[in-house]
């Protein structure tokens, strides 16, 4: 009996090690969004001043696979991802729509003039940002892949990096375009 007690540490460690082995194949950062595979929320967002489009509505997302990118002129990480979004726009693979989230529309428009404008349509979602809440946005930037039937298929948290685009987003878009 006493002997068994001495085996306890190695037994506990053995169980821990099995969990670690399993843990190496899991990704704790993957946060499932409750809105995946649900239709995009109903929205009717006003346009940015001076941009020339008519804003962003639910109907605009029908018919084509598209990206919806949440940004704001106050958002620092958006500056980081923005040049890459402009590049994606130039490839013409997928239309990108922007939601200027919790922002002053004038500032949001100025910011696009300064950093480049990769968007087809832009809608303004002023504070407190009801539409973004309906999307399940937790912070900016976030990017959603919406399919032809305007159903949300994927949510990317944080800046869209070249790696994330090539390894994750682009394959999903190609799959949806089939």
């Amino acid at each position, binding site marked *: 009996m006493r002997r068994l007690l*001495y085996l306890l540490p190695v037994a506990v460690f053995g169980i821990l*090690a099995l969990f670690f082995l399993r843990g190496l194949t*899991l990704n704790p950062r*993957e946060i499932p969004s409750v809105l995946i595979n649900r239709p995009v929320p109903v929205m009717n967002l006003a346009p940015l001043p001076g941009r020339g489009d008519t804003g962003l509505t639910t109907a605009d997302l029908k018919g084509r696979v598209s990206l919806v990118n949440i940004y704001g002129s106050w958002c620092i990480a958006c500056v980081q991802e923005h040049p890459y979004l402009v590049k994606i726009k130039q490839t013409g693979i997928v239309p990108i729509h922007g939601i200027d989230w919790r922002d002053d529309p004038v500032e949001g428009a100025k910011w696009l003039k300064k950093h480049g404008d990769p968007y087809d349509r832009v809608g303004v979602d002023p504070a407190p940002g009801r539409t973004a809440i309906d999307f399940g946005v937790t912070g900016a930037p976030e990017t959603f892949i919406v399919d032809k039937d305007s159903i949300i298929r994927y949510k990317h948290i944080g800046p869209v990096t070249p790696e994330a685009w090539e390894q994750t987003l682009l394959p999903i878009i190609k799959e949806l375009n089939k």
Partner: protein
Amino acid sequence: MIAEIGHFALILALAVALVQAVVPLVGASRGNAAWMALSGPTSAAQVLLVGISFAALTHAYVTSDFSVMNVAQNSHTDKPMLYKVAGVWGNHEGSLLLWITILAVFGGAVTLFGRNLPPGLKSRALAVQAMITVGFLLFILLTSNPFARLEPPPLNGQGLNPLLQDPGLAFHPPLLYLGYVGFSMAFSFAIAALIEGRVDAAWARWVRPWTLAAWVFLTCGIALGSWWAYYELGWGGWWYWDPVENASFMPWLAGTALLHSAVVVEKRDALKSWTILLAITAFGLSLLGTFLVRSGVITSVHAFATDPARGVFILGLLVVAIGGSFLLYAVRAPALKTGGLFAPLSREGTLLLNNVLMATGAGTVLLGTLYPLFADALNLGKVSVGPPFFNAVFLPLMVPMVLAMAVGPLMSWKRSDLAGALSRLKIAAALAVAAAIATWVWQGGSLGPWWAAGGMALAVWLFLGVLTELAERIRLFRAPFGQSLSRLAKLPRSAWGMTITHAGLAVFIAGMTASSAWKQESVQSQKIGETITVAGYAFTLKDVQNVQGPNYLASRGTFEVSKDGKPFAVMQPQKRQYKSPPMPTTEAAIETTFLGDVYAVIGDSGGDGGYVTRLYFNPLVVWMWAGTGMMVLGGLVSLTDRRHRVGAPTRARLPAHSVRA
């Protein structure tokens, strides 16, 4: 060229470590003195080779040699020199190299200072130390080469994460690693003792100072990290129970338990197998921390870039080192002779209680840290475990521990009389109750949480308990005053160490309680000229200006702060935007007073002409840092005790006129 020399030196070090891991061990079992003695020159050679390698990487950073990939990814020419050097260990590969360097230095120190160690124990311990080195050298050479070249070299590097560009954090990793790796000494000696089948007072006398030194470094390292989080992250908090913080806290708890149980081994020849187990566990938890931070199994705000191949490797290392040690323990520990017996109510008894509570505490932290992994692996969904769990489970465990801390040192070895010890603590108890009532009345019964009174009472209890013990030792008021003074002067350093460290914990508890219970904060959009009052301090936002730093742009807010109508301070928090890599940081402005920190953070412009400002009053925060400083000081004082002094005769010579306390 220099980078290649560094790489080559690492490969040579691996060869040397392999020799050191095998030959002295075989020599010790065969009684071959020459083979055993080989552990000396090999450990010296390792210091040299690993030192060359570390110097080579440092050279690449200092000269901004961007043809080395590691430098290109983590450094930048604009970076101040301090952070170029700190950049060496501000990344996965370099920090591993630092780990190995410290490991080699500790091995060299055994050779240098361990002349009067029994040769068998010494050569076996050094062989075990070399095995750890082999594991880490293989890890760095096979998966994480810091000297990999980049062709063509970029014009400039990507820079170090700006959050890490901070003097506090520059020295945080080396101190932490000195602690982690320091526990490898206790580990190596524990394994050597298991192989020999003997643990005695001489073993404990050797292990204690090394464990104490590691503990001092680890305490410093954790405190520095915590201090950094407090002033840099701008949330006004200092501990978040983040997995990486926990990874450093668990070895600390196990190491603290080890320090105390090793005392029992040395003085009373008891608790041997438990002490061995703690020595393995303390280092095992250090390794586990390394695994958690670098494998990606747990999400944390400050994990290294992760790579599954590395994770598999460290897991393998963990299984061999810790699984193997526990297995050896299961086989050999039952044969260890149990020494002195003691009654539950004795100093040994209270030290054992402290050990059990510390170990349980470490266990709960481990459970909370790994719970998200367990849940995910068992398909119970993604969960996160936050401060509420730890505060609810860990802190209650520490209450009986602190209560016992005042009593334990007043008890005698072997068998003691609890009533006698408690009767000496009457004043401490009375004042602790008074402190609780005073706190309760002061916070009006409802202003603060109920536990604040308990926390303050514990702090008073412990502090006065420590003073009571000191007074007992010098027979204050019971012997003539002059005699007490001369006793005070002759107290051994280790006694002073304990007194200072325990008193430091009391000060820390007071600071922790106050800063958690009575923190006041106000978050708002504040316009220029607007005044917000927090805890009696009136913050007027005078202006917000753009300022240029060496590698960042910042908007700097200027607050004029007054208290009771009198000017108190001008505070200038910043919001910085670093250029490489592009990342924002907040630089809080903090004015420290004895009673609390006045803390201001400026955020983004809110769009309506105002700025998001966070203003805090954090009571007694400086007490926490002071308390931690006392703990570190106590450890250092204790290290200078002549009985610990390396190279001193194994039996301390007592001065002829000294009286045994």
